């Protein structure tokens, strides 16, 4: 007899069978069996371009959801997150982060205010259990209920400048009334009271909808969106395009740009960290770190010479001395450049400065550039 397998089971979203039927290339991501690219779409570059110029849809059901509700919900959210949730109107959302006492990241989150005393935190797949336990532990003294709703939803992201056109055909909600980073409820594909958030992880306009996680409903909604968007050239998109899209827009990825050893100032997320709040976990350490100055900052670079910087590659000064490392690097399909984010000392981060990236033993020349690498044109 062989021993029982000790490796944890790979988790699947409710759309797993749909993806596999389409001949999708799957990959393990943070314990999840997820689409990386759809050969039927033409691959990562085609998917990326669809989102920049038209519309694409993503299964992002691996993301987790934590609900805090009750009279003490706001105070609890204020205590555990760095942005100022008191500024949120009902129906509004904000980018934020959960921090350790040392000012480093438990995770980055989107906080949605769903009702007067109800907040929904959307969290990363790889940190689901850690986040939930951490939120529960740190909100014990507040009069609020904490629920893990991670398995309740199939989360579908519809992203791109034409996303609004496609989704509007499937809902009675007036999407023109929902601003970016706002949320509303409406009937979607005949399903009542569906949460519709104008959020995403691509640097484009778009929506994320939260539908019941049963397989039949999930498959029906996924297929209806694809069918409805067909004339607009909608493509199903995988984690490959999701990564290149978020990198062009400089949106952080946990364990890359942010982690439990990187603090808020280093990551350059100052504008989402409200030090005017009197108290939140991590605040004291950040106050101290701010007076001490930074040893490294997240910096955007683009390759000048031929070569692609990849995650983990070393960054060198012009003499070849190691000064930092790449957190995320890739060809940028829309910009048609090879770009990367890297941690380097502030003295090496000024725009235009030449650096080198160690690519298989060769110091390949790169240059510091402004970020985000890509910024969409906003209407008016």
């Amino acid at each position, binding site marked *: 007899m062989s021993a029982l397998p000790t490796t944890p089971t790979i988790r699947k979203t409710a759309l797993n069978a749909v993806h596999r039927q389409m001949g999708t*290339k799957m990959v393990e991501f943070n314990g999840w069996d997820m689409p990386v690219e759809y*050969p039927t779409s033409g*691959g*990562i*570059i085609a998917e990326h371009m669809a989102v920049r110029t038209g519309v694409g849809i993503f299964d992002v059901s691996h993301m987790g959801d934590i609900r805090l509700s009750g009279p003490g919900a706001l105070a609890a959210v204020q205590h555990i997150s760095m942005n100022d949730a008191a500024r949120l109107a009902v129906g509004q959302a904000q980018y934020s982060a959960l921090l350790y006492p040392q000012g480093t990241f438990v995770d980055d989150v989107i906080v949605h205010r769903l009702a007067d005393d109800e907040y929904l935190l959307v969290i990363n797949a790889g940190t689901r259990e850690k986040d939930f336990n951490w939120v529960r532990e740190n909100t014990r003294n507040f009069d609020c209920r904490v629920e893990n709703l991670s398995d309740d939803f199939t989360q579908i992201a519809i992203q791109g400048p034409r996303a609004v056109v496609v989704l509007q055909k499937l809902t009675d909600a007036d999407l023109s009334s929902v601003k970016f980073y706002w949320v509303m409820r409406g009937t979607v594909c005949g399903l009542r009271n569906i949460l519709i958030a104008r959020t995403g992880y691509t640097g484009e306009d778009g929506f994320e909808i939260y539908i019941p996680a049963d397989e039949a409903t999930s498959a029906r909604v996924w297929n209806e969106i694809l069918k409805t968007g067909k004339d607009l050239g909608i493509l199903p998109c995988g984690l490959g395009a999701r990564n290149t899209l978020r990198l062009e827009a400089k949106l952080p990825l946990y364990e890359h740009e942010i982690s439990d050893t990187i603090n808020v100032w280093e990551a350059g997320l100052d504008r989402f960290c409200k030090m005017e709040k009197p108290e939140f976990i991590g605040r004291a350490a950040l106050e101290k770190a701010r007076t001490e100055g930074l040893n490294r900052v997240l910096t955007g670079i683009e390759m000048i010479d*031929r070569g*692609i910087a990849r995650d983990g590659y070393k960054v060198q000064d012009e003499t070849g001395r190691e000064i930092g490392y790449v957190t995320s690097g*890739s*060809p940028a*399909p829309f910009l048609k450049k090879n770009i990367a984010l890297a941690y380097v000392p502030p003295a090496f981060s000024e725009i235009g400065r030449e650096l080198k990236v160690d690519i298989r033993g060769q110091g390949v020349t790169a240059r510091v550039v402004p970020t985000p690498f890509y910024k969409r044109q906003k209407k008016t």
Partner: protein
Amino acid sequence: MSYPPDFKYTKQHEWIKADGDSATVGITNYAQESLGDIVFVETPKVGAELTAGKAFGTVESVKAVSDLYAPASGTVTEVNGELATAPEKINKDAHSAWIMKIKLKNPGELNSLLSAADYEKFVAEEGGH
């Protein structure tokens, strides 16, 4: 896509087509499908000495970097310069978008490589689970 019967194949997914003691090398259709959009090919220099089974260059897709392994020992006589500006040619037709030509040290080495039929069987098993 069918695998040309006059090519030999490696388990690392390179193909080689010999003509006397010279040969052309590329990567297989299975390789380009697995890699996805190819954006970069790093080739050796003309004159470089290759050893069978040893890495001689890299091919990069949007997502990943993969080493290329020499199907046979020999000396590089020509590299396909087109791939520097148009690496996607490998995605379009992997079996005609060659990477380099070599002068074989020992043409007999090719006997140990896979035939088209054996390679097809091999990738069917590799891709099947």
